[in-house]
């Protein structure tokens, strides 16, 4: 019996739940100096002068550096195709562009001394006009980067057409887009800025030994870190060892390298001693990349009998002060524009702009939740407009099972799906008809506590950035197996899942499989973990490497047993190879590993999937809305998710749980806010409404397994689905509760004040 598909408990959990893992802040690093960055309290200002003299002579201070001291090549642009005039400096040079921008680095013997001294760095700021609102940024009246002469990073489609990334006919809206529609609904939707809030904040530590650098950092992609360090410091990759020890969450915000981290080795080299930087939670809120931050103008048209015909989405993407990956999130939104629906006529535009705010990055879902939130909200608004049940409108327009592979009007090819079944299943599991009856009863009674039922059917793209991932398997002389993987888990449970893959192939016990990751000296190549890519890339690589090891062992056993390899069987129960029909003539893994000599029993695979995969599902949320206070209580979250074949349903469920919590939190609670002068007003976890278990119901989760043909495991990614599906379901539930009061839409987070205002505004209209 295969161990794949079993709810195997996570091997890594006892460590995390008891003695604790090892995080960058915990590493013993003899003689390390501590780095603290001085950050701008102003959103936009010219630096007249920086006086570091008092700080330099403060107790314990080793050095204080400002922008002029850093003799490194400029940081590479945050993303290819980004406006080169908007590149981030290592430390501010002349101008600061968001609250949290770094102006100086203070290095001291202890962290306490560094913090004390950082208060003695006096910066004379001359305030400049700020641009915080991304819609205002488009007008180019105030520039974030004077030299750029514009706040626009790029426009879709215009700029993509001009560089040949989109065909010329894509440049303009197709004529007669909404022709044939009886009804067209329009809505401005804010997909608000959120802070990723990993439990472990950012940290980096560096040690130079001659020309060799060891760099520990809390990252999702250590090999990319190695590459950028080698480039930054002009050394070969073999001279750099990047290590991601245990990493306490990333959510996409720890994919890219930040100047805070990359300056640590510069400081260590300059001082000729190890150095370490660990940020505070307050710093993390200000300067770890933020997510989402789109303003969307949506138009959806169709017939009175519920057929969707045309959809237009115009996005303004807030990229923050130094545009990087955040500017590109709309490309993912565009890819997933029409979701699970067969809408044939579409037009998508985007203007990615710079503002005087913290840069935006990938955050759990990265551009896809924004697509799903928009279309799922619009389907509900459309359903309300034509007076049809939103479940019915969804069902009528879903891509049918016979259409796969299905290419959408924005050119994305979905591998395989079974969308309607997830809708059926969620409606049944939730008891949809009874819920609607209860809703009618409450509406009739007219009390303050109204019921809302929110649906969302989603499809998303995982492993969306094609490329190969590394995996190797080696059977050791003691019969245990060692896996090396290029993925870099930070909570996802790879150690257990990869052990299952190997145990399944080799018949070795899960406990006897060791998984090495996150260290570029131990793993030769790797891409890392993001975009829900790991199992379907790195997992497959490990699985295939295990298969190859079995083949090698079979050949070796055949040699030793003087038999034909085709006659050799692996008895997984007894963990030995024997000649078919003759169990006594056998070789154990230990014997084979020892006999394999210098060559060893090992295999390496770089697996490149032929394409991305598209998990899907339907979520249903029941919310009770207090129409007097605007308070919302989530009563139920029912989720049906299909991520292809599940290797470990327990781990998959855990990913769904975390995703549902984070997705519901965006809909209901979280927003990173700046005031109109660019001061962050939610810069700690008291003001930033980070969700807790007390605000969430017990999740009701169901899985379906429609295997993908894209990889031999049949597996898709499950890391982000929960977030993608739940956000619109929660928002739709809140809006649905208010529908009978004449409220059409409430932006996220659907906080009490927003709900209350929406009700008041609707009263005013009546």
């Amino acid at each position, binding site marked *: 019996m295969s161990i794949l598909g079993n709810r195997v408990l996570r091997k890594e959990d006892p460590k995390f739940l008891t003695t604790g893992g090892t995080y960058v802040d915990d590493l013993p690093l003899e003689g390390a100096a501590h780095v603290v960055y001085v950050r701008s309290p102003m959103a936009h200002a010219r630096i007249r002068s920086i006086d570091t003299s008092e700080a330099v002579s403060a107790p314990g201070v080793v050095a204080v550096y400002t922008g002029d001291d850093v003799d490194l090549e400029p940081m590479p642009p945050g993303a290819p195709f980004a406006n080169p005039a908007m590149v981030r400096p290592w430390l501010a040079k002349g101008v600061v562009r968001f609250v949290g921008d770094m102006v100086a680095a203070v290095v001291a013997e202890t962290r306490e001394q560094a913090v004390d001294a950082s208060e003695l760095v006096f910066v004379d700021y001359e305030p400049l006009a700020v641009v915080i609102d991304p819609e205002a940024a488009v007008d180019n009246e105030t520039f974030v980067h004077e030299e750029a002469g514009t706040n626009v990073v790029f426009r879709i489609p215009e700029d993509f057409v001009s560089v040949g990334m989109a065909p010329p006919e894509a440049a303009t809206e197709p004529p007669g887009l909404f022709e044939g529609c009886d009804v067209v609904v329009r809505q401005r939707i804010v997909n608000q800025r959120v802070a990723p809030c990993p439990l472990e904040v950012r940290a980096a530590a560096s040690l130079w030994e001659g020309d060799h650098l060891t760099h520990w950092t809390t990252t999702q992609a250590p090999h990319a870190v190695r590459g950028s360090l080698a480039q930054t410091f002009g050394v070969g990759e073999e001279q750099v060892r990047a290590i991601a020890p245990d990493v306490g969450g990333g959510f996409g915000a720890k994919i890219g390298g930040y100047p805070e981290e990359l300056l640590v080795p510069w400081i260590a080299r300059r001082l000729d001693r190890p150095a370490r930087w660990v940020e505070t939670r307050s710093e993390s809120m200000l300067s770890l990349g933020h997510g989402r931050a789109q303003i969307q103008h949506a138009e959806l048209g169709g017939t009175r009998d519920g057929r969707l015909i045309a959809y237009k989405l115009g996005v303004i993407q807030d990229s923050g002060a130094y545009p990087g990956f955040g500017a590109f999130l709309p490309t993912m939104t565009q890819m997933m524009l029409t979701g699970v629906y067969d809408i044939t006529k579409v037009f998508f535009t985007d203007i990615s702009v710079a503002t005087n705010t913290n840069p935006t990055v990938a955050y759990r879902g990265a551009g896809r939740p924004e697509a799903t939130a928009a279309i799922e909200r619009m389907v509900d608004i459309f359903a309300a407009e034509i007076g049809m049940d939103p479940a019915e409108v969804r069902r009528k327009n879903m891509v049918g099972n016979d259409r796969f592979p299905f290419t959408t009007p924005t050119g994305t090819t979905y591998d395989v799906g079974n969308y309607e079944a997830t809708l059926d299943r969620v409606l049944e599991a939730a008891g949809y008809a009874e819920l609607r009856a209860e809703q009618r009863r409450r509406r009739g009674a007219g009390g303050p506590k109204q019921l809302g039922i929110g649906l969302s059917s989603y499809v998303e793209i995982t492993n969306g950035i094609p490329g190969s991932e590394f995996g190797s398997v080696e059977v050791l002389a003691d019969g245990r197996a060692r896996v090396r993987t290029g993925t870099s888990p930070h909570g996802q449970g790879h150690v257990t899942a990869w052990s299952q893959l190997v145990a399944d192939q080799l018949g070795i016990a899960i406990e006897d499989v060791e998984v090495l990751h996150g260290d570029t000296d131990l793993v030769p190549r790797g891409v890392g973990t993001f975009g829900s890519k790991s199992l379907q890339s790195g997992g497959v690589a490990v699985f295939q490497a295990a298969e190859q090891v079995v083949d090698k062992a079979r050949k070796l056993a055949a040699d030793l047993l003087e038999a034909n390899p085709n006659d050799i069987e692996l008895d997984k129960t007894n963990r030995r190879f024997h000649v078919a029909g003759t169990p006594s003539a056998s070789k154990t893994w230990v014997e084979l590993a020892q006999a394999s000599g210098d060559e060893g029993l090992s295999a390496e695979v770089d697996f490149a999937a032929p394409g991305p995969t598209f998990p899907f599902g339907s979520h249903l949320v029941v919310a009770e809305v207090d129409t007097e*206070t605007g308070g919302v209580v989530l009563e139920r979250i029912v989720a049906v998710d299909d991520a292809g074949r599940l290797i470990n349903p327990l781990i998959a469920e855990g990913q769904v749980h975390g995703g549902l919590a984070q997705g519901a939190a965006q809909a209901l609670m979280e927003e990173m806010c700046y005031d109109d002068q660019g001061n962050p*007003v939610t810069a700690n976890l008291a003001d930033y409404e980070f969700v807790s278990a007390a605000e969430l119901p017990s999740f009701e989760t169901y899985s379906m397994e429609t295997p993908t043909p894209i990889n031999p495991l049949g597996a898709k990614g499950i890391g982000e689905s929960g977030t993608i599906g739940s956000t619109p379901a929660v928002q739709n539930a809140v809006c649905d509760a208010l529908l009978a009061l004449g409220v059409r839409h409430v932006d996220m987070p659907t906080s009490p004040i927003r709900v209350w205002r929406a009700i008041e505004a609707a009263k005013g209209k009546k």
Partner: protein
Amino acid sequence: MIPASFDYVRPGSLDEAVSALAEHGDEAKLLAGGHSLLPLMKLRLATPSVLVDIGRLGELSYVNDAGDHLAIGALTRHHDLHHDPVAMHHAPLLSFVAGRIGDPQVRHRGTIGGSIAHADPASDLPAAVLALGGTLVARGPGGDREIPADRFFQGFLESALTPEEVLTEIRVPKATAGHAYQKFVRRAQDWAIVGSVVARVDGRVGVALVNVGPTPVRADAVETALAGGASAAEAAELAAEGLEPPADNNATPEFRRHLARVLTARALAEAGL
């Protein structure tokens, strides 16, 4: 996240604590549960040069039945107040309110004295003590002094205590005729966006509001209307009278006034009025 440096003393008795304050004057701060003071120090919004740690003074942790009233030691933790049988019996409002503060960690560290002395308008216990018409007992170099709750809260984070005084005891009348606390929050662990406390004491109804101004306040108009025979619903409509509520990310002044009315109506109903 690292406080500025400070000296630390841990007096062995209340008297020693009073002397330590007298010695260091307003450079010093008492440290009780630390759950208001330490966050401020970590953000360097408070930088006392001496901390006088009274956290372990067992003599200030008690809930006593004192005949017509209840006497609560200033160092009684929220958790202990919440579960104290004497408090549950004679001042069920106070015990209930203590159980609605923050999260379990906060309730195990935070003290009623710290909460009252800190005088945060967003805190729960100050409004409860106001509604009950309690009395605060402070000890300074000159001995003990009693301060009625109505005169204790003087401004934002400002109390009637002098820098040399230790709040030692909180006295509240026994009140079992009905009570309610409507605390409106987005997250279980949060401070109230607005709260409304109702206490029924000796035929009188006390109503106090949380987070609607620089101090916790009595809803005078509501109390007067009720005393004059108005219905609970009519009286609740007056809850926002005279308020100048703050604006923040969760609420505008207007929304706070609205919530004060809604929550007071609910609290009055819940208290059986």
